[in-house]
């Protein structure tokens, strides 16, 4: 046994840490800053004197989440062998997998797509995404993603929180905790679903987990009124409103003093404070009438199929422009991309309603000089299988799938990683969801192993002590 280990004392009980200990043990740098802030040390900058762990490239994130699992082999990862072997079962040389719907020995389903190389970089994109295809020079396609969640519940949960079971903070919450907000008058972390369908398990995916509740995502409404009840009723007026809110804070603070463990109370107080500040600032932020017609057309807001998501993408741009740190845009919320059958109809519709808005977002960010500091992420909880399901669909595939990133210090016009010849397993430069998260945090200036939150005596990390950033992605 090494000398060092022999001499180390292992406490059998948790030692009460002093505030100084907690600052030090909480993981120096950014983590300690955030912890100091939590402990009520108002001057965050002075606590540690440090800042980001690594050079930050991005200051905000827009995560376009296609819920249900878009088929990578029909969008970004062409597989000629799939066409050749169409109708035959999966060859035994490919490691068999568990499929959630259990249709074993199903015949392989060819991709009906037409594939072309695009842009100067020559990235492959199928004809289902003609608008995004024109932006490939800014996009880094990662073909080798993989995860542990076989079903929507655990897949969406892992893509958001790093774990297949609920209870951990979401990536947006970690970013909110580690970096704070640039605009105190808007929530740091915003979530938008795009239709009445709800993302599986809902708030679990944008929760603060074991961290204080104030780090959770704030859901906004898709449609013309993203934030309801934003205005003080005329019958009340601003003076009375101010009076009420002051008195309310007084009562709530007194109530919270004897209940310090209940972080919900502090979060509730903060949410009223934020609501008040939002009343001042949010109306302008969400007012799309201030945009030109030409801009709205860029997002497809003038066309029926793209109107809803186009609006959400434009709103996202306005929000990050005004300092919102993390915006998650769900497309197809309610697992609409989940094409167990009829993939042609399903993906045709879903691509139609998302392609132009996303491309519009990239273009708009670029022309406003925002793309360099805004990290745009695209993908779902997993991809889909080359084996068919119900004849004309595909089952879930967390073993190998595609995500892409653009902006925020990402080197565009490249493809990273590969899947096997049928697109079933990720083989080269495998990127687990933890690696993806580590990369996202790295681009924001955060080291995933140095950002910690002390919970029940254990320094918790966003990637659960795993994951490393992918250097190839960096510009």
């Amino acid at each position: 046994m090494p000398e060092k280990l022999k001499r180390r004392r292992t406490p059998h009980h948790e030692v009460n840490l002093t505030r100084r200990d907690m600052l030090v043990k909480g993981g120096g740098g950014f983590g300690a800053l955030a912890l100091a802030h939590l402990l009520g040390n108002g001057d965050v900058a002075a606590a540690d004197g440090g800042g980001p762990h690594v050079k930050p490239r991005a200051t905000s994130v827009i995560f376009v989440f296609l819920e249900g699992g878009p088929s990578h082999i029909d969008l970004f990862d062409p597989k000629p062998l799939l066409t050749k072997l169409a109708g035959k079962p999966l060859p035994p040389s490919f490691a068999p997998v568990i499929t959630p719907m259990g249709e074993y020995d199903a015949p392989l389903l060819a991709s009906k797509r037409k594939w072309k190389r695009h842009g100067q970089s020559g990235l492959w994109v199928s004809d289902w995404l003609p608008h995004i295809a024109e932006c490939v020079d800014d996009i880094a396609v990662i073909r080798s993603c993989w995860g542990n969640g076989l079903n929507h519940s655990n897949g969406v949960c892992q893509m958001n929180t790093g774990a297949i079971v609920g209870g951990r903070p979401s990536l947006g919450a970690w970013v909110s905790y580690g970096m704070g907000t640039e605009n105190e008058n808007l929530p740091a972390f915003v979530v938008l679903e795009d239709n009445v369908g709800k993302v599986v398990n809902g708030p679990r995916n944008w929760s603060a987990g074991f961290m204080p509740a104030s780090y959770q995502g704030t859901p906004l409404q898709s449609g013309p009124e993203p934030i309801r009840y934003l205005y003080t009723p005329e019958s009340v007026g601003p003076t009375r409103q101010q009076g009420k809110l002051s008195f309310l804070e007084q009562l709530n603070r007194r109530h919270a003093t004897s209940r310090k463990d209940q972080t919900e109370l502090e979060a509730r107080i903060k949410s009223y404070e934020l609501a008040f500040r939002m009343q001042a600032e949010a109306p302008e932020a969400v007012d799309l009438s201030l945009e030109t017609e030409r801009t709205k057309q860029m997002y497809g807001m003038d066309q029926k199929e793209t109107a809803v998501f186009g609006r959400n993408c434009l709103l996202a741009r306005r929000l990050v422009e005004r300092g919102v740190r993390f915006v998650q845009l769900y497309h197809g919320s309610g697992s609409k991309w989940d094409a167990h059958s009829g993939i042609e109809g399903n993906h045709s519709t879903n691509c139609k309603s998302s392609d132009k808005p996303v491309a519009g977002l990239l273009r708009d960010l670029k022309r406003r000089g925002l793309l360099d500091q805004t990290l745009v992420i695209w993908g779902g909880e997993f991809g889909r299988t080359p084996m068919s399901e119900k004849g004309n669909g595909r089952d879930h595939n967390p073993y190998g799938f595609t995500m892409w990133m653009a902006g925020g210090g990402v080197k565009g016009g490249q493809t990273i990683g590969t899947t096997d010849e049928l697109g079933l397993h990720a083989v080269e430069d495998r990127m687990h969801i933890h690696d993806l998260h580590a990369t996202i945090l790295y681009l924001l200036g955060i080291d995933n192993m140095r950002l910690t939150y002390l919970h029940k005596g254990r320094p918790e990390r966003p990637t659960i002590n795993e994951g490393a950033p992918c250097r190839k992605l960096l510009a």
Partner: protein
Amino acid sequence: MDSDQPRSKIYTKILRNRRDALLDAFDAPDNFNSTSERNVTTTPTQSLLMINGPWTLSRARALASRLQRGQAADEKQTVTQAYRLVYGRKPNSSEVAAATAFLRDQAKRATPKIGDKTVSTDPRTAALIDFCHVLLNSSEFLYVD
């Protein structure tokens, strides 16, 4: 049960395709799926609903009317009665002082300026409504210990 007996539950009608804004904001289950445990979120959009939404405002007006009908001798009694109704306890002396100070200041805020024709509610009533509204928004009312 007799209608005048105290109850521990509130019943309401749920129409399947018409979501209630208040219940929605506070994570009511969708009633399509079995929900063993409700989510518990804390968001600024809930605060906006509570402080600006028409339903909570009308509840505050109703509570204020009820207090006025109670014919308390003075403001201290009104405050005490309000605390009993909303929090189930008596206020201590500093709480009464803070509340009566609020009622006084709020009545001033609610007094229309000369020539201002928009305000129609009597300032003292407006202050009482605002007081009730604050109590209904407060953590002590929203959270069970």
